[in-house]
């Protein structure tokens, strides 16, 4: 599907979501409560069948913590960016999508480790790289005492 067709299809499927064409990919912003349902729909709906999650990350914006999922369909070869804003920037919580795309299990652990986003129903949510005593280094308010990396 082209980006325009994909946008039309997604707008029809997801009535509560905001669908737009970004600089490269179609972007869909869903509510945090609807993330898991949206993930299942994106992966199982035959016209969409987004089965390959190639990038999962989070971004700490001044007002919000945003999770970003880059998805591709190996069948139709179209790409979508799924975004979700967490309700709280300081204590962000979203549902896990690791039951939909297995690779998310460790990518979510990385996001939890570096950004402090908690994932509901994740089977093994522990820090991945760092020790428990560390802060969340990719947050913008993180102070690096040893070697200052600041913007």
């Amino acid at each position, binding site marked *: 599907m082209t980006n325009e067709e994909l946008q039309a299809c997604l707008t029809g499927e997801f009535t509560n979501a905001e669908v737009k064409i*970004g*600089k*490269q*990919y179609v972007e869909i912003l869903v509510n945090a409560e609807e993330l898991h349902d949206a993930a299942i729909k994106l992966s199982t709906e035959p016209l969409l069948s987004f*089965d*390959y*999650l*190639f*990038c999962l*990350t989070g*971004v*700490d914006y001044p007002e919000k913590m945003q999770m*970003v999922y*880059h998805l591709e369909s*190996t069948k139709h*070869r179209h790409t979508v*960016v799924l975004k979700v804003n967490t309700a709280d920037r300081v204590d962000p919580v979203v549902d896990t999508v690791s039951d939909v*795309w*297995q*690779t998310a*299990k*460790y*990518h979510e652990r*990385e996001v939890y480790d*570096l950004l402090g986003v908690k994932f509901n129903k994740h089977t*093994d949510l*522990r*820090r*991945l*790289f*760092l*020790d*428990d005593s560390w802060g969340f*280094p*990719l947050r913008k308010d993180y102070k*690096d005492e040893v070697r200052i*990396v*600041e*913007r």
Partner: protein
Amino acid sequence: MSETKEIIISSDKIHTDQYLVNMGPQHPSTHGVLRLLVRLEGEIVHHIQPHVGYIHSGIEKMCESLSYPQVIHLTDRMDYLSAHMNNEAVCLCVENALQVEVPDRVKYIRTIMDELTRLASHQLWWCVMGMDLGALTTFFYGLRDREHILDIFEETCGARMTLNYSVPGGVMFDIHPNFQKRVKEFITEFRKKLPEYDELLTGNVIFQERTNDIGYLSLEDAIAWGVTGPSGRGSGFSCDVRKHNPYSAYPLVQFEEKLDTKGDSFARYRLRIEEMHESLHIIEQLIDNIPEGDYAVKMKGVVKLPEGEFYQRVESARGEFGVYIVSDGKKNPYRVKFRSPGFSNLFALNKMAAGHKIADLVAIMSTLDLVIPDIDR
């Protein structure tokens, strides 16, 4: 992270006949500082829990305080065997964001460099693949041939591994006058050497026994775990970024995306050998046709990206490498995320190795071709 907590989490029940062994972080066959917590019953592997982060260098965080040309210099410290692809990914991302069209000459040079890097990486992988299975000869053969590529790099880029040859808008300097001649010499020579690789390892009975039907990964699992590169293609997952999202001079060349549906260690091995043939084929199509022209377009002294998000995918030697840049219009990025192929590939290891013997675990890990700084970033 307390050790006891990990043990309780990683095994549902502690059986008296099962025990936990730490493989690594200092272990010759993990090729870097990686620790695998392996649950064994006798020689049989039941579960593998990889532990990473021993050499985490916080590159994504560091990028937030650096300018875009500086960011490029950090990318070849991640997957140092795919240095040029990583550099190129950031350059392409910046160029796309600024809508800069690079000269054809740059596209050709970059693509040749990509394929030379892929060859050098696969050669080193082949060296250690044999060595992991106890065949030391492969190590000398592979390094002997890799040396030629590194010499070519040295002559043109000034560096042998961390090239930093790509810059936003082009390449750092023009190719060395000897470049084309030496690349062509290398192709002729390496074409003769590749059958030796097959004689030494591919056709070897012991090698076949150790890799055939070992470490099976299904197509569904490969996609679900995001296993890309030759490792994913060994399971029939068509994931070659050069084919599906072509960049640089890849739309201009003829090459085949090699796929295998067997999904075992041997399939992953065979595909890398075949990829080397394909890489030679790609270089041959380009090397005599490098267009005349500038080797870079003039960029502004300070590179500022417009506000927004930019993503670039490239095919590194290990699989799909991605750069995700969030810009707020300043001279350094607001957030950078590197999607490294090794990270996703590593965590599918449990799927492949569970049920096999511990010696096979070494062979399976070798066919994944892991580079640890790529995982830890």
